[in-house]
């Protein structure tokens, strides 16, 4: 491990001297060019001082295996059984109760209580085994079994590391936020993984936001997935839109305003704020706002360029399924994510479904088939595209969901036609691919019915820890003084899938 340089020596007690303030924000009467004024180190140093003398200097703690992350989230709870962890026993015992199988009743396994903590509502109980709703077969040279709803992704099987032994503890959809923060709904909230990575690593490209959210949602709770909380708003995910007219809210120069005019105006705003900084050297908000204007000015130009999918070839568009109606939206999102990764964005959270889209309490066969068809080609396209560009050497892709679905048929009284599976926090699958990740491996194991994890159980923060490890970060060294994080918040890297 390489020791990190010590943080730059600051004045005592977090106090910033006037001279330092001016140096940090690059203000000088010589009138340097805007971009150069706030050079990266200056920004970083200012940021470090904002949180007090002890804040770490951004950058990896040890040599990283990956530079950035594309995090694909499928909301609502993907059935592990009909996707990455098929269980033929479900077909053998279809319609039978758990007691009628030769296996231990999974409800009596102590894990059942231990790993399910309902926020609202009771435990999810289900008596009758529901057969697999789709066929499956071995794929690739590694021979991993994948369901037939993933014809495209199946061809990438040899590049993926499947973790079939994930569990979480909330049996309702707050598990989605839990997946991003590591915290159960009933516990105090924590910053999300994207924010930690942004906080820990800083910027690779100062002209773009470093933690991006791509997706659409109506339920604003989705924002919990990219909330930095006490790490500060500068580590929040920034929402970008693929609508070329407005990639960012208020993201385009007003009609009639000249580019040079706005540039001069931004410089003037900066000068004024810098003068104000002399008056109020303690004002952290002011320092943050100066940075925000810098970033805003550059983002205004860089974001549209990064998101301009028109620059991509028709062949690439086809690769992502942008030429087909059912895959176009998600294909665009993933192609945009690749372009952002290429330009140095550290963490892109791609919300590749509607909120709760995969939540197939009924009609699982139809709904899952439809949702798979929407994302299969785009995700496979992304993996292939990264590989052919060599980006799989620096970008790691994670595909995740909040929980799996029950091996049993959901039999709620309100369901007229039971044809689905309920939420299942006890077992689900997450997969990773790309930089630093083993190719074509399956890690962890669920029982014969896909109910409980029986080998290598991993709580959601183990995925966080794995990513931090790949990026060269030691989670414990990211801690903020006075903010107690628990062991389980840190998780443990899944060593078995690291290349």
């Amino acid at each position, binding site marked *: 491990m390489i020791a990190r340089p010590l943080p730059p020596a600051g004045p005592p007690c977090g106090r910033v001297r006037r001279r330092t303030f001016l140096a940090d924000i690059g203000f000088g009467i010589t009138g340097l060019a805007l971009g150069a004024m706030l050079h990266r180190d200056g920004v970083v140093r200012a940021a470090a001082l904002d949180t007090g003398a002890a804040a770490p200097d951004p950058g990896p703690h040890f040599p990283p295996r990956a530079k950035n992350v594309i995090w694909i989230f499928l909301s609502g709870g993907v059935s592990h059984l009909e996707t990455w962890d098929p269980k033929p026993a479900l077909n053998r015992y279809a319609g039978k109760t758990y007691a009628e199988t030769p296996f231990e009743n999974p409800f009596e396994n102590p894990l059942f209580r231990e790993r399910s903590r309902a926020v609202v509502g009771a435990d999810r109980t289900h008596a009758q085994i529901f057969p697999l709703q789709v066929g499956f077969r071995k794929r690739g040279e590694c021979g991993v079994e994948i369901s037939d709803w993933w014809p495209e992704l199946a061809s990438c099987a040899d590049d993926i590391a499947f973790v079939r032994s994930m569990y979480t503890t909330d049996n309702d959809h707050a598990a989605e936020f839990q997946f991003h923060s590591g915290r159960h709904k009933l516990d105090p909230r924590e910053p999300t993984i994207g924010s930690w990575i942004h906080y820990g690593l800083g910027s690779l490209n100062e002209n773009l936001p470093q933690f991006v959210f791509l997706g659409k949602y109506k339920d*604003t709770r989705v924002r919990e997935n990219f909330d930095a909380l006490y790490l500060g708003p500068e580590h929040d995910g920034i929402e970008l839109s693929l609508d070329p007219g407005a990639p*960012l809210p208020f993201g385009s120069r007003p009609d009639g305003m000249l580019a040079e005019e706005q540039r001069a105006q931004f410089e003037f705003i900066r000068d004024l704020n810098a003068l*104000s900084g002399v008056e*109020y050297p303690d*004002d952290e908000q002011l320092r943050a*706002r100066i940075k*925000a204007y810098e970033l805003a000015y550059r983002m205004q130009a860089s974001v549209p360029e990064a998101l301009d999918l028109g620059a991509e070839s028709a062949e690439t568009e086809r690769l992502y399924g942008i030429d087909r109606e059912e895959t176009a939206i998600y294909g665009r999102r993933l192609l945009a994510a690749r372009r952002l990764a290429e330009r140095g964005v550290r963490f892109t959270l791609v919300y590749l479904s509607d909120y709760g889209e995969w939540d197939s309490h009924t009609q699982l066969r139809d709904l899952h088939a439809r949702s798979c068809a929407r994302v299969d080609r785009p995700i496979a396209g992304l993996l292939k595209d990264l590989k052919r560009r060599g980006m799989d050497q620096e970008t790691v892709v994670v595909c995740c969901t909040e929980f799996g679905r029950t091996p049993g048929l959901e039999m709620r009284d309100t369901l007229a036609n039971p044809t689905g599976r309920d939420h299942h926090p006890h077992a689900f699958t997450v997969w990773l691919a790309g930089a630093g990740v083993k190719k074509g491996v399956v890690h962890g194991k669920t029982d014969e019915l896909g109910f409980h994890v029986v080998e290598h159980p991993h709580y959601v923060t183990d995925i966080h820890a794995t990513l931090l490890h790949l990026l060269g970060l030691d989670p414990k060294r990211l801690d903020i003084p006075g903010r107690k994080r628990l*062991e389980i918040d840190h998780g443990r890297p899944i060593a078995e899938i690291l290349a």
Partner: protein
Amino acid sequence: MDRSIPLLARRSVGGPASLVPAIVVLGLAWAGSTATGGEAVDYEAKIKPLLRDRCFACHGALKQQAGLRLDTVALMLEGGDSGPAVEPGESEFSPLIERVSSAEPSLRMPPEGEPLDDEQIALLRSWIDGGAAAPEGEEPEPDPRDHWAFRPPTRPPVPDAGLGWARDPIDAFLAAEHERLGLDRSPEAPPHVLLRRVYLDLIGLPPSREDLLAFLDDPSDAHYERIVDRLLADPRHGERWARHWMDVWRYSDWYGRRSVPDVLNSYAMIWRWRDWIVRSLNADAGYDHIVRMMLAADELAPDDPEQLVATGYLVRNFYRWNYNSWMKDSVEHTGKAFLGLTINCAHCHDHKYDPISHEDYFAFRAFFEPIEIRHDRVPGEPDPGPYPTYDYGKSYGPITSGMVRIFDKTLDAETFLYTRGESRNVVPGRPPIPPGPPRFLAGDEFAIEPVELPPESAYPGLKAFIRLEETEACESALAEARATLDASRERFESMGPEASDVDRERATIRLRVDEMKAAAALAALESLRARIAADDARFGRGGDDPDAAARLASAAEREAAAARARLELASAELADFEARHQAEPDADAVAKAEQRLSAARSALDAAEQATSEDSADYTPLSPSYPDRSTGRRSALAGWITRRGNPLTARVAVNHLWGWHFGEPLVATPHDLGRNGARPTHPELLDWLAVELMEPSSPGVPPWSMKHLHRRIVLSAAYRMASTSSESASANRSIDPENRLLWRFRPSRMEAEVVRDSLLAVGGVLDEAIGGPEIDQSEGLTTHRRSLYFAHHGEASMPFLELFDAPDPGECYRRTTSVVPQQSLALSNNPLAIEMARSITSSLSAELGATPDDGAFMTAAFERVLCRPPSREELAAGARFLARMTNILRGASIPEPDTRAREDFVHALLNHNDFVTIR
């Protein structure tokens, strides 16, 4: 090594079942004890905090599960039902270690959350093996009921501190801490800073340039005081502070599926509650009154529609799809908003920190159990119709007139305890739980008395305005019908001999239609009068025999129905005539007309037959509701607002303080319980709480909020500068976060204030007060205050959202962020540019002729930032104007000087000082 031997030989206090898991974990435990070696473990630093975090909730002062307490070493040794928890020197024999390290989840402690990790267990083990030494004089946890916030506040003596500085007792409390810790206070803020601060604080809008210049001219205390009084009397004060309280009271316009539209959450017309808040604050209605009205105006002011809308507080929690959710939100947020108690934590089990039992939760819920929503008519507006009961799968658009309010519908509603927070888990056989406050706070005098409601409340049809409006509507319909008939008759009689037979026949039928219309209108009016008379008789307001009056009303109503049927027949005949006499024959139209004619004939037959029926049924003028209310909510409201309630006033003043000073005295304003934050200034909090309830100034009514506002903004603390001098570096090491207020806290304006200020400095703010919520999409084009735009859980106005608009679901404290999009929202916002233009042109007009750049820039600073520019700023501004004029001229932009000035003003609107309250 067979490590099971010592365990089997142990002096066991547990049953045999507990042995097995203990064996399993022994390996771990051994590893642990070697890891920590023989060093003495610091009980206070390492052991007690661990036990406090993980064990005290069930084994401490709050609860003593199995008779065991772990909050002192002595109590551990004393042990519980099954003997001592700790055997000093012998961790292997200590049940504490056995239970925390058990591999058997059903036995392992703590039962919830993560098990203790190896290191923690090793620490415990090492401490026990080292003799389990107790610190001297270790005191058990105090009785939870003695928690500071659970004891009624008494007025503490004002400290003798702040000599030469303090203007108010408030200051003395702060000064005592400053002096204790050796903190140097900041000097008084410059007049322009103070003026802008107090304007934005009290009315949410910046002072005008004239206000500024006047104050700079005379920055005396007396002038400041006059300004404060003026601002407190300004109607905009209510708007500003309503927005604060709306965060806490969770104001939300209706939502659910607005695009359908389908009202699922909250309710349409709830804006009347928002306007009530504004009015109440402007009128300085007491905080106690406000709380009582929001919880129980239907019981306390049942015939006052002005107050009834206050129950919007409860309407807001409405969730059409789930009554339990309505109840749950009402319990949770009544607890948090008025009591600073997290009663919601006892939804599934006894509270972990406060003495609130699972049963207390349901007793609190029982206050709300009988409620339902109703629509009431409002003078001058159409009848919104009755509140529809939910029919599965249907959607319900918003009502657009009248008002929405709460009433007790189910007077015998019962509340049943359920477990695990799941309403399906009602405990069978357990009797219903009667309403009541948490028992540890209830006091002795809690009683619920049913409330008799005035007849107008039970049957709004009695209200004079409804009768009047209905009568007027009938009368004007009659007058109109008669006028039509007169005209029709005149036309008919003046028909000349040249008229054809067809024309003559048509005119005859038309005349009949108009005659029937006049007859129907008259019958409707007579029917209405008879129904009103019958209502009077029924409610004993006239001498008539109720039954006879009802029969008359019933007959008149049937008469009116028959008259309507005659009108319809005449109209059908006219339609039939027209269909037969069209220029181009249309068989379809004729067939339809015949159908209508035949239907009208049979309807008339039926209606005429009905006139001879014997009945006393008539249509009431409104729906009817119970004539009593349970009194549960007024009892709750009375209990919350009585002097002896230890929490209410503290919660209120804590919020008030936070909104004036940027941070509340208790950092968790929704939780003053044992898990909440400690107050930074407990005596000050109590002094303010008592001052709210029992004002020390003569003539001030109890619970006056304006009185506290005034005291606070006139205090020396409020007038401090937010800057700190170089010499204050000692302060920064003593209190870097300024928790003890040695300087004023600068803050970013709330989202609404940013938008409103933009409009205000631009001179275009529309100061109209109240009314229905405005669509969010009009945020940049409609110049009303932000308060009046739709605010709900489904979406928010992008501009406000960017500046951290409150979450309508829960916002007991605002948060502030600084993100690049905020910068874009001010720099690329057409509204900001429009404001820059209007400011530039109005300043030019104000300054006369052609002001030079210096005069213009100075005035612009004063107008936008409420301060004069510094020399450096003027120099930078001059360079900017010169540069910009060049750029613009180079691009052949017309009037480059004016445009450069607009750009200058636009830059000031983007200045950090514009969005900052210093």
